C-alpha cells in the first residue's frame, strides 16, 4: 500500500450563523494517493468546496473544524497561519473558480507568478523571470515572453485561468487543488484549460483534486471519484465503478438526470424529485432518503455508513453509503427513477 499524500480523518465542519448551526461537512474520511487525479462531485451545498478550503486552512472565522488532516507526518488542522503558509503554494497549489478575482489587478501576471516562486525559492531576479516565462509557456500562453508584463485585464478568462494554473504549479507542489476551475468558462475555453491542467500535473507529478459539479469533466480526467451529498461522502470508487456501476441511488439519479451530447435526446430525463436537504439541524436517517425511490423504513431511522460494495469485481475500493448498495449496484443505469412528469397532481382543465 502506498503512503497517502493527504489523509483526512473524521473531518467535521460547522458554521455558526444567526439562523442556527450549519453542518457543512459531517465526518469525512478520505485519502489522496501520489500522482492520482481525484474527482469530487456534488451539487451546491454538498460540502465539496468546504473540504478544499478546510485543507488549505482558508475557512471563515465562524467555522468550527474537528477531525484531522495529515500531510505526511504533519497535522494541518489547527496549524498557525504562518506554518500553513509554508505548505500553501509550496506543497499544495490552489486553483479557484473565478480567475478574475484570484489575480490581483494591479500587478502584471509575470510579477504574480514570480511572487509565488519567490515565496518558497531563493532565485536571482533573472532566473525568477525566466522561470515565470517557462511556466506561462507550459500552460499554453502564446508569446509568453512578450505577455509576461501584461496585466490580468489584458487577458481573456481562459488565459487568466492558465496564469492561475501557472501560479499553482510554480513550486512543483505535490498536490493541486482545483475548485470548479472551468465552471466560469465557455466549453471550448474549458477544453483549453483542462489541457493546460493536464500538462501541469504531468510536468509537476502532482496529484490533482478536481472539485466540480460537471460529471463530464470528471469522467475525462479523474481516476478516482468521490460523490458528495449533504456534507457526506456517499460514494467513492474508480471512475469506471462510479459511472458504470454506481451503488448509491443519488449517483444513479445524477447520471440519469443529465442530458448527454452523444444522446439523440429522444428519451426523457429521469429527474430526482425534491431538493437537497437543509443543512441546519440534523435529521435522523439517510440524508437522501426523502428523495429516494428505494426508501425503506430503515432509511428514515438509521444513517448508512460508507461501506465496501462487495459485489463489484476488480474495484477493490468501491464504497457507498446506502443500506441497499449491493442491490443498487446491479441495477441498470437510469432505471431507478420513474419516468413521471412531476410528483404533483394534475391541474384541472
Amino acid at each position, binding site marked *: 500500500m502506498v503512503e497517502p499524500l493527504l489523509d483526512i480523518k473524521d473531518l467535521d465542519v460547522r458554521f455558526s450563523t444567526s439562523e442556527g448551526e450549519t453542518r457543512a461537512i459531517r465526518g469525512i474520511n478520505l485519502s489522496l494517493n501520489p500522482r492520482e487525479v481525484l474527482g469530487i462531485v456534488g451539487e451546491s451545498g454538498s460540502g465539496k468546496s468546504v473540504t478544499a478550503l478546510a485543507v488549505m486552512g482558508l475557512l471563515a472565522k465562524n467555522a468550527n473544524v474537528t477531525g484531522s488532516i495529515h500531510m505526511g507526518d504533519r497535522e494541518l488542522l489547527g496549524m498557525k497561519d504562518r506554518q500553513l503558509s509554508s505548505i500553501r503554494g509550496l506543497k499544495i497549489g490552489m486553483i479557484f473558480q473565478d480567475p478574475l478575482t484570484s489575480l490581483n489587478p494591479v500587478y502584471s501576471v509575470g510579477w504574480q507568478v514570480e511572487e509565488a516562486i519567490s515565496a518558497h525559492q531563493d532565485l536571482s531576479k533573472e532566473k525568477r523571470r525566466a522561470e515565470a516565462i517557462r511556466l506561462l509557456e507550459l500552460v499554453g500562453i502564446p508569446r509568453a515572453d512578450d505577455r509576461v508584463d501584461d496585466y490580468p485585464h489584458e487577458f481573456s478568462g481562459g488565459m487568466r485561468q492558465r496564469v492561475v494554473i501557472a501560479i499553482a504549479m510554480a513550486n512543483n507542489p505535490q498536490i493541486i487543488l482545483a475548485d470548479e476551475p472551468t465552471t466560469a468558462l465557455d466549453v*471550448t475555453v474549458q477544453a483549453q484549460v483542462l489541457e493546460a491542467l493536464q500538462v501541469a500535473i504531468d510536468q509537476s507529478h502532482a496529484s490533482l483534486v478536481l472539485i466540480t459539479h460537471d460529471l463530464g469533466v470528471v469522467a475525462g480526467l479523474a481516476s478516482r471519484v468521490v460523490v458528495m451529498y449533504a456534507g457526506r461522502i456517499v460514494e467513492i470508487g474508480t471512475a469506471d465503478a462510479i459511472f458504470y456501476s454506481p451503488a448509491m441511488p443519488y449517483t444513479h439519479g445524477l447520471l440519469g*438526470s443529465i442530458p448527454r451530447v452523444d444522446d439523440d435526446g429522444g428519451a426523457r430525463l429521469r429527474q430526482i424529485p425534491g431538493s437537497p436537504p437543509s443543512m441546519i439541524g440534523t435529521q435522523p436517517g439517510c440524508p437522501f432518503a426523502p428523495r429516494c425511490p428505494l426508501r425503506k423504513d430503515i432509511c428514515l431511522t438509521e444513517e448508512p455508513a460508507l461501506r465496501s460494495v462487495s459485489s463489484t469485481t476488480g474495484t477493490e475500493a468501491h464504497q457507498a453509503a446506502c443500506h441497499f448498495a449491493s442491490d443498487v449496484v446491479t441495477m441498470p443505469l437510469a432505471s431507478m427513477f420513474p419516468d413521471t412528469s412531476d410528483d404533483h397532481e394534475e391541474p384541472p382543465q
Partner: protein
Amino acid sequence: MTSEAPVAIETTTPLLSVKDLVVHFKKRSHRFLKSYENTVHAVCGTSFDIHPGETLGLVGESGCGKTTTGRAVLQLIRPTSGSVTFAGQELTGLNREELRGTRQTMQVVFQDPFGSLDPRMPVGEAIAEPLRIHGQWTKSEGHQRVGEMMNLVGLEPRFANRFPNEFSGGQRQRVGIARALILSPRLLVLDEPVSALDVSIQAGVVNLLEDLQARLGVAYLFIAHDLSVIRHVSDRVAVMYLGRIVEIADQGSIYRRPSHPYTQALLSAVPIPDPHKERSRRRIVLKGDLPSPVDPPSGCRFRTRCWKAQAICESETPELLELEDGHRVACHFPEVIEVV
C-alpha cells in the same frame, strides 16, 4: 417534442421570421483625455424561422450574440436593421403601445432565477402581473387562474403569497415559467432557463418545459450555451459565432453530421459523462481567443482560429448555404466530421 414529424413543421408558415437581423451597440471608451466611440457588432445579419409548436435551439459561447438576438426578437433591444416578423406582423418600428398586443403572445423566461423575480413581490402577484398589465385581471377569476398556472408548473397554489426568497432556484424558475405562460403565448423566448440550476434540479425544469410544449403547443426559442441541453430539447439548432449563425439544421443532423469547423470544435469540447468514451475521443482544441466584436475579422469570422483557413476565408464572407436537406452551413470548405 423531438418526436414530432419534421415534415409537418416545414409545411406551416413560420410563426416567427427573423431576416438579416443586425444589432450594433455604441460603446464609448475613454483613454486619457480623449474619448472614442466604438461600434460593438453584436449581431450581424442573422436569419431564422420558428414554426408553431417547435423548438429552435440557439447555441454559442459567451459573446456570440445569442442573448442579444433573443432580446432583439422581443424588441427589448431595438435592432439596428433587419426585420422581425411575428405571426405575420412586422415588429421593428412598432412603438411601445403597438407592441403591447404582441407582448401577450410572445413571452420570455430569463436565466437567473434569483434576479428575474422582483424580491419584494409575492410569487402569486408576480404570476398575476401579466393579467393586470393587459387588463385581464378579474376579481372572480384572477386568483383561480393563478392557481391553475401554479398547478401547471408543479407549484402548490397555497404558496402564492410567499416571496421569491422562500423558494429554491428550481421553484423560482417554475414561477418565471408560470408568469410567462399565463397569457397563453404562442412563442416563449427561453434565455438560459436552466443553466443556473443544479444538475438534479435542471432535469425537472427541462421535463416541465417539454410537457408544457406538448400540452400547450407553444413554440420555444431556446437560448443556451450547454450543447447537451440544446440537443435534448431542440427540434432544430442554430450555432452562432461572433454575431453570425454558422450552421443551422435539424437537431439530429447538426449533432451527427456537423459540417462547420466551429460546430465540430464546440461539440468535441463538450465533456461526456462516460469515462471510456471521454478518454478515447478526439478533441479539437481551438487556438487563441475569441476576437473582439468591436473589430471582427473580415470575411469568415472564424478564420482566425480555423485550421482550414485559406485566402478566400479572409476576403469573402461565406454565405449560409444549404448543404443537404435543411442543413445550412456558412463555410467555404464544409465537410462532415463526426465528433460525438
